[in-house]
């Protein structure tokens, strides 16, 4: 049984009287503990799929099965409860937090909402979460806008793992980070996956990163699946036009050249 199975997903937008099909008949599945990457140029529908899978927006057609249940059939309180198992980390960690929030409040929310820890127990749990993502527990009272971008993304990951999810959607979660920080966050994500068997739906336009951390990749173009399969096999030898274009456009660093 797949952890997440998306079938024939379709989403249309009306923009200025015209109907744009952002996601067109897309099907894929993610197994427990697996990383599936959605890659493609901008406008290929990868972020829309992420938001559909999280039910932040509703599809026009298709089905989503999560942990064996019809995810689209849930609503209200059962849906909110199930959200504990399906979390998200956004691209811009500054935009993903309430500008007035502190680190402690950001981590308190999921613990409180899902009744994971009592009020008196929460400060201890928050400290443990911070330490789990490699941050000092002393960071808790700080305001979100005071800490660095890398720290913010670690807090975002801590918030996502607070409810012990089985799947985390990473929507360009590494793109806004400095390269030196990106490596550390990547290591953290892989470590979490190994320890907690969390599956990732990894949205990215960076094929280099996709190739290093994803098991499988779905290449999207214009809302449709261009090709999908083993990440390294596809990126090393893409068959689709968009796959070839993406690979050709990725900058290469040839370090063998001497002075």
């Amino acid at each position: 049984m797949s952890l997440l199975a998306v079938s024939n997903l379709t989403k249309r937008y009306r923009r200025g009287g015209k109907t744009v099909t952002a996601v067109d008949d897309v099907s894929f599945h993610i197994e427990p503990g697996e990383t599936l990457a959605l890659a493609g140029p901008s406008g290929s529908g990868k972020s829309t799929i992420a938001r559909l899978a999280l039910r932040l927006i509703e599809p026009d057609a298709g089905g989503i099965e999560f942990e064996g249940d019809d995810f689209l059939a849930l609503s209200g309180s059962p849906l909110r409860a199930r959200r504990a198992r399906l979390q998200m980390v956004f691209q811009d960690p500054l935009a993903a937090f309430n500008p007035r929030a502190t680190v402690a409040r950001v981590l308190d929310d999921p613990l409180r909402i899902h009744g994971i820890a009592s009020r008196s127990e929460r400060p201890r749990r928050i400290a443990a979460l911070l330490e789990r993502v490699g941050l000092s527990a002393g960071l808790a009272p700080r305001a979100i806008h005071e800490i660095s971008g890398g720290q913010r993304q670690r807090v975002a990951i801590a918030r996502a793992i607070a409810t012990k999810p089985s799947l985390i959607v990473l929507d360009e979660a590494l793109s806004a980070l400095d390269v030196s920080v990106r490596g550390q966050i990547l290591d953290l994500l892989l470590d979490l996956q190994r320890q907690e068997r969390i599956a990732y739906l990894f949205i990215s336009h960076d094929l280099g990163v996709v190739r290093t951390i994803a098991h499988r990749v779905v290449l999207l173009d214009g809302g449709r699946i261009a090709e999908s399969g083993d990440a390294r096999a596809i990126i090393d030898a893409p068959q689709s036009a968009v796959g070839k274009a993406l690979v050709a456009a990725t900058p290469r660093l040839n370090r063998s050249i001497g002075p």
Partner: protein
Amino acid sequence: MIPLRRFLHTPEAIAGAILLTALFAMALSASLLFPGDPQAIAGPALLPPFQDWSLPLGTDRLGRDVLAELFHGARTSLAVGLAAAAAALAVGAVVGTLAGFAGGLVDEMLMRTTDAFQTVPSFLLALAFVSVVGPSLGVVVIAIALGTWTGPARVARAEVLSIRERDYVASARAVGMHPLEIAFREVLPNALPPVLAMSSVIVAAAILTEAALSFLGLGDPNRVTWGGMISEGRAVLRTAPFLSIVPGIALVLTVLGIYLAGEGIVETTAVRRGLS
């Protein structure tokens, strides 16, 4: 105290602060300086100002101390102005947030209600409400709030519509937060600054509306109000114009002070936002 120093940066803000401080001082010291009923007879009727230093601003037709009335009137004006504005801002912010955040049918219903209130001139609305329910301080406050909450509601809704699409709202939904908690804990606080920027205009308008209601005899009869004082003085406008002029000036200075201070606050927050 850096924000205060920054607030007192412009001459307008300083003038506004001085006027407001004076107004608050008047309101707070009214019962200390003028204990007893300001509506009691204190001396001969129609005593002109600056004649008798125990009654510096003279007396009105019934021999009441104009200065005492002025001080006690400041209380009413401030109380009504602040309470009505607070009520209007609170109702407006809540209605605007619900409409903007919920969207769809809820938005339609709330905004059409807002339209309905906005199409009736707010003063007529207040007039009708007080006439029907009867004049008392609380009723006057509600009457004024009834006509002024629509502005804050529209501003709050516009702000919420943009905030609703931000990532942190999506993040709150993804974490499983209840929609009402998202609306009032995540969205509303961030939508407030432009709504609060309207508060000075609303307070000033509320004070003027209160004065107008009192002038028409629809104020709380048990309280001294500036509008009521002007109305009283109207009967003897030719012989004792000061009875209308003194509370009139107080009213003008109050509204001016609130407006200038409000401008100063908006300027201060704008500067701070520009720096960050």
